[in-house]
């Protein structure tokens, strides 16, 4: 008990001494506390709501942006899948087109070859026909020329060989034949 009384008395003394020892003016301190509280009240009433509103708006904007990013990412992923699907489809179609084109080109080539062969055969046939015609014409001309020559030769031979007596006999035969 003695100890406590001694401590309490010492403490009161010490408190007075402590503020003084620390260089703190307790009246000034109280004033500063009051000013601080006023400041806190003012801040809490005017600044903090505005600040919180800005923060909330900012947060909302960030969340909006995050949502938009997520949506964009999702859309990108969806697009990627769609693009992949389209690419697959395009590759498939390209392969089909190439296959069809190859088939068609092969068919066209085959048709062209057949056509060319047909034309060449026709040309050969025409050439044969023309050749046959030329040969026939040549033979005809040769035949006619030969006939002409035979006629001329006969005329010459007869003109030299036929005499009056033979002519008389010939006339007699002609009369006989015509009767």
């Amino acid at each position, binding site marked *: 008990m003695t100890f406590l009384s001694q401590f309490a008395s010492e403490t009161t003394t010490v408190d007075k001494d402590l503020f003084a020892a620390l260089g703190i003016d307790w009246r000034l301190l109280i004033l500063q506390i009051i000013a601080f509280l006023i400041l806190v009240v003012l801040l809490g009433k005017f600044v903090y709501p505005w600040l919180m509103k800005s923060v909330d708006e900012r947060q909302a904007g960030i969340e909006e942006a995050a949502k938009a990013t997520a949506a964009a990412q999702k859309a990108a992923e969806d697009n990627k899948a769609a693009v992949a699907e389209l690419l697959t489809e395009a590759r498939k179609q390209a392969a089909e087109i190439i296959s069809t084109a190859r088939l068609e080109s092969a068919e066209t080539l085959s048709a062209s070859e057949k056509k060319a062969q047909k034309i060449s055969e026709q040309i050969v046939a025409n050439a044969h026909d023309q050749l046959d015609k030329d040969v026939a014409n040549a033979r005809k001309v040769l*035949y*006619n020329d030969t006939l002409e020559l035979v006629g001329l030769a006969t*005329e010459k031979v007869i003109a030299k060989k*036929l005499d*009056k007596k033979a002519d*008389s006999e010939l*006339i007699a035969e*002609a009369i006989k*034949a015509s009767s």
Partner: protein
Amino acid sequence: MTRLSRRSIAEYVANGLVKGDSKKELFSQLAAFLIDTGRTKELNLIVRDIEYFLAENGVVNATIISAYELTAETKKALEAFVKKETNANHVSLSSMVEPAVLGGVKISIPGREVDQTIARQLTVLKTRFKKV
């Protein structure tokens, strides 16, 4: 003046010849008429018509073309042939030599021609057997 037909003129001359009128007089009349009427170009046709009328009256004038002069025997044979063919009472032959016929004979009688010359036969040979 009516224009006399060629047929009438020929008939007049032919009848005169058949009757035995003077040939000289008939032909003089014909020549004068043709000259007078400006129809001398028809002379050949009129002569042909006269021959035709004469043939109808049994008088045939045959023109014979041969490569050589005809012998009397041949002429006789030809005359007989013409008589037989035309049933004529009288046949007169006018023979001509044309070496171009080569041989044989060509007989021309009114309305008919018999060509048995070698030239003709050769022509037939060349044309008939010629390929077109």
